[in-house]
């Protein structure tokens, strides 16, 4: 197990029609855009893809559609997180049957799980499938609930297919601790950067990157990813600082900002679904201007 390496992972948004239905026409175009601009895997629907705002049936359809559209050109990683373990387990099984290359899951939403609960939740999801299972660690998004090295080691003991952690904690102490300890017992254990803050993660041993901004700045991110893959950090640093600037522009508004930025880049994917509110005209203008002001964005593709 564990030979699967996700590489440079694009995490597409989920386009909606004016009636807030999944817009499969646009989704197909968006997937083609990602494949054309360097995606080595797709992971969907991540939080940037408004996973929690989709019904179970919509998530299954979305995944099946994406796998059908991709037709094996790159691996598709299915995001199966939910509050209830049984719901996530059923979604994981469906993902495997639908042809996903791997699954990824966060801690259960809302329950502020103690470590023992987290362990059982992940163990049940992971053991429901044979494909690789990644844990997504994003304490800032999950009310501070986070993976620990101890938990990772216990999961390795429980699951042959526990392939690694997609880490958005950005925490050097944790990243170094977990990768160095986990590799002692599972040499091919992977740390994957869960955000575009790749330089430090790569330096301490991460391989691969989930990139929520790949729909906005695929060229910049490809440069960052390639320089980091070769450990050419002098070149990587400039790209890292540029993408950090883009992230800061979009940080406050979350997915609503992300969709406003996609619109500004000529790839309209509609508004976010409720409860998220679409940004007003003025705020959208501010985002478009702020992105325009970042020189490196001049080299990014416009339109589809």
């Amino acid at each position: 197990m564990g030979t699967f390496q996700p590489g440079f992972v694009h995490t597409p948004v989920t386009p909606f029609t004016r009636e807030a239905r999944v817009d499969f026409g646009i989704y197909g175009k968006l997937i083609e855009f990602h494949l054309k601009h360097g995606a080595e895997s797709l992971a969907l629907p991540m939080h940037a893809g408004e996973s929690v705002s989709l019904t179970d049936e919509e998530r299954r359809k979305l995944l099946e559609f994406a796998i059908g559209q991709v037709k094996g050109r790159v691996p598709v990683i299915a995001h199966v997180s939910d509050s209830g373990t049984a719901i996530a387990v059923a979604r994981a099984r469906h993902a495997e049957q639908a042809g996903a290359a791997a699954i990824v899951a966060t801690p259960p939403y809302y329950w502020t799980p103690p470590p023992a609960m987290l362990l059982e939740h992940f163990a049940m999801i992971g053991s429901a499938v044979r494909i690789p299972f990644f844990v997504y660690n994003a304490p800032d998004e999950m009310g501070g609930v986070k993976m620990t090295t101890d938990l990772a080691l216990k999961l390795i003991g429980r699951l042959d297919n526990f392939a690694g952690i997609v880490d958005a904690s950005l925490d050097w102490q944790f990243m170094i601790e977990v990768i160095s300890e986990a590799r002692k017992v599972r040499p091919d254990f992977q740390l994957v950067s869960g955000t575009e803050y790749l330089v430090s993660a790569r330096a301490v041993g991460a391989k691969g990157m989930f990139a929520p901004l790949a729909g906005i700045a695929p060229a910049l991110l490809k440069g960052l990813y390639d320089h980091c893959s070769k450990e050419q950090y002098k070149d990587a640093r400039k790209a890292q600082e540029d993408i950090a600037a883009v992230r800061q522009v979009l940080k406050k508004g979350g997915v609503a900002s992300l969709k406003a930025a996609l619109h500004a880049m000529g790839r309209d994917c509609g508004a976010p679904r409720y409860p998220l509110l679409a940004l007003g005209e003025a705020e959208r203008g501010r985002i478009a201007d702020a992105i325009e002001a970042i020189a490196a964005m001049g080299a990014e593709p416009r339109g589809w």
Partner: protein
Amino acid sequence: MPIKLRGVMQSPVTPLKDDFSPDLATFERLLDFHVRTSGTAISWPHHKGESLNLTIAERKLFAEAAVKAVAGRVGVSIHVSALSVEDSLDLARHAQKIGADAIIAITPYFWNPTKEAIYDHFRRLGTSIDLPLIAYNSPSYLSGIEFDGELIERLIERLPNFIGMKEASFNSEKFIEISRSALAMKPDFALVTGVEYLLPSIPLGGVGSYSSAGAICPNLCNAAFEACIAADWDKARELQYKLSRLWLLFRDQYPSSLKGGMVMMGRPVGPTRPPLPTATRERQDYLRTQLEELGVMDTEPHGWQ
């Protein structure tokens, strides 16, 4: 002398006698040890030096001893942060008077100051002396009180003597927000990470670190820095993983275990002042087994020589 901020800089612990009183003789031996084992600068008393458990008079006494013992061989910065800002200003003036080369200061303790109040604090501190000023960012210990890019830019603009930062968030986003602002305005602004988190910070423009484990394993610390500078990343990872294990040993109730480990390295520095515990004999023995497992006992100097 102009202080050079590069490489692994040492922030000594504070040696105490069995009755918890200052042990200046051992302090001088320790400073000498750090300088001889290639510490590129000395900075005292960080929290590792139990700064907050020393009286202001004791801090002045040790600071004078530090400047005297180092005797210009490397730069010396004095950490002036105290609970009371009046004491900080006093310590800063004292540092200048005794011939220190720089001061270093963290964001104010306890009060949850606004960004404006943090700016004002550093402006007052920086203009109260002629020495270079190093700011110290440690949001995880200070309930989210921290620097961001904008604050750094304002302070660099206001204070010509603002030369660097101890950046101890250990967080990619926080480090980058500070580094890309500071280095764009002032390319020689020195970003120094805490502990020995060299590998994640140097590729982002960091120049080195203050040291946690330098009194235990100076060779390992220096080798990690050299590997990063030589872009020998596989080697750097191996050494950084080792340093991470050491940090996990010492982090809890810092610097109690560090002082315990120093006993095992033949460099005893006495107890740790309450409320911090002093490492028990059992803890010291456990630390010894860990240091042996990491190969530290065989590759690092034993005793003071």
